[in-house]
């Protein structure tokens, strides 16, 4: 494998650290100090579920950016199993492990 030069590695490390922190901290610091208008708050209340919905859909049905057909998609079934396990146990740990196990089993079964 080709090696990336050290100055490039350090540049990327320093840049990512700085930019990531700015992206994460700035809104937190500025917007926690005053009241946001109600419509904005309502809009924000829908953001978490929207992000999770689009993340699950992207990761399960378009892993790595390529469409994977639902019927033979081990991840899709495993995702539903994970949701069910969480629904009844309320345990992130249990649900995540159940999801990984069922994914390995299903992948072996249906490729």
């Amino acid at each position: 494998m080709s090696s990336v030069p050290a100055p490039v590695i350090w540049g990327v490390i320093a840049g990512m650290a700085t930019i990531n922190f700015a992206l994460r901290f700035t809104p937190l610091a500025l917007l926690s100090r005053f009241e946001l208008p109600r419509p904005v708050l309502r809009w924000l209340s829908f953001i978490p579920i929207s992000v999770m919905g689009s993340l699950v859909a992207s990761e399960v049905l378009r892993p790595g950016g390529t469409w994977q057909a639902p019927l033979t998609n081990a991840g899709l079934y495993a995702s539903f199993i994970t949701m069910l396990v969480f629904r009844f146990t309320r345990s992130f740990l249990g649900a995540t492990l159940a999801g990984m196990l069922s994914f390995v089993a299903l992948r072996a079964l249906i490729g």
Partner: protein
Amino acid sequence: MSDEPLNQSPAIPDARHSTLQNIVRGCRLGLPIFLGYAPVGAAFGVLARSLGFTWWQAAICSATAIAGAGQFIALSLLTSGANVVSTLIATSVVNLRYVLFSTTLAPQLPNVRIPTLTWLGFTLTDETFAVNIADIRQKTATPASMSGVGIIAWCGWVLGTVVGALAANSIGDPTRFGVDFAMPAMFSALFVALAEDRRHIVVGVVAAALALGIPLLSRVGMPVSSNWVVVIASIAAATLATVVSSDE
């Protein structure tokens, strides 16, 4: 015990004792994040080593960036010979969703002291965000518990990276343990955790459909970079929900 929920008591005057208890509670709450991060962090460590990172460069990168997808994208760009600036631009675009998370969390954290706020910002990821938001909705979150979630997540990511980078040659292919499904599994569980009522479920499903539909725009000559899909789909779904439900 002043284990007071965030929503009722924004300025929490915790005694040292209960702060510690809350941090521990947060660490427990974030344990699945640790389990999800450690193997993915290990995969990052292995990959970083193969690109010429030393084990401690990989560790510093994870410890300061704590950005799962962003870090992997940085590696893949470096592999293809990209320079520092274009690598940083690409990872920043992927990480723009943090602005969304940060903005969403902000109104829940009035009067939180700057050092705590700094740590919460520093450890803000998809998973810590989702776990904390779910906890806030249960009215059980405190700044200390949220810090605990951040601590355990950070430890999982950094420890995983170190182990992966040091054992790069002996681990082999970690995907045979289903590690590649740890994150999707966690997101699936979090989806259910955040689906409070039917309206939320509908919004989530709409966002999912948009996330699958947006990439199809490339067929009509409007290619959207996959880095933007989640951000655009989330903003569109939340906006739609706000407009439609504005009269309630």
